[in-house]
């Protein structure tokens, strides 16, 4: 009888912890890996180099911004890919709804439609972003990246200004 009540207590604790975890990760904050080099050097700065650091960065994603969908220039956001709903991307917001934006790679100027934004990776040479699929609906955004939590040498807040871009002119 003591054993069964002990097991029951453990089961209750596990279930409670599971429910709390799912609620927190769905509505408040979560930690995700960042793969690929499209946001280099902000994330995965060695990706693509021959030294090949094979470990992904882990970042903290907060979801309070989804209550009002208020974003700023330079926010790094996680969004569902408009080309494949099972993939998510991490990019930086470059333009907000209603603004005029000059795309760098074909020198075109467009106005961002209502409810959409323009996202770009920091490493434009290796990034699938709005330069490929155009403005994305804000409703595809699933969270905002605020901190790097792994690896230890780069733990810290994510800056909202993109790193200085080498001129390609």
């Amino acid at each position, binding site marked *: 009888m003591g054993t069964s009540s002990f097991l029951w207590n453990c089961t209750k604790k596990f279930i409670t912890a599971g429910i709390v975890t799912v609620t927190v990760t769905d509505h408040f904050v979560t930690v995700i890996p960042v793969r690929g080099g499209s946001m280099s050097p902000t994330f995965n700065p060695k990706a693509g180099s021959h030294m090949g650091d094979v470990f992904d960065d882990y970042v903290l994603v907060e979801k309070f911004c989804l209550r009002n969908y208020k974003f700023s220039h330079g926010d790094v956001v996680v969004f569902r890919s*408009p080309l494949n*709903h099972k993939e998510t991307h991490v990019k930086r917001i470059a333009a907000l709804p209603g603004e005029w934006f000059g795309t760098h790679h074909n020198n075109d100027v467009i106005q961002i439609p209502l*409810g959409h934004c323009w996202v770009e990776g920091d490493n434009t040479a290796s990034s699938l972003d709005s330069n490929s699929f155009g403005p994305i609906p804000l*409703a595809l955004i699933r969270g905002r990246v605020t901190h790097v939590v792994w690896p230890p040498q780069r733990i810290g807040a994510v800056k909202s200004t993109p790193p200085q871009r080498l001129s390609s002119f």
Partner: protein
Amino acid sequence: MLPTLNAAGDVLLTDPLSPRLGNIGHGDLVLLRSPLNPKIRLMKRVEGDNVTYFDALHSKAAQVAVVPKRHVWIQGDNIYASRDSRHFGPVPYGLIEGKVFFRVWPPDSFGLDQ
């Protein structure tokens, strides 16, 4: 969505797993975020991959659209009072939040929805 849903408001159950598993098909009622305003949720019906539609405000002739891959064409059942893909075009699949599968109110319409 008249006459499928009542003007006074129906209560429906939606299934958030179906969009993640890819179980959204032609004719399904779906709950999705508006591409024009992410704070607004819409409930519309999914149409097929090649759509012939009628937009009473802009043209008297039927028009044809081909829906791109990984996108859906959504239309309200009440085509004269609905702002949907006829105005803003196909929407990415990732905007869909749930699929309607059951109606719980009003009681005379209780049951599986479709």
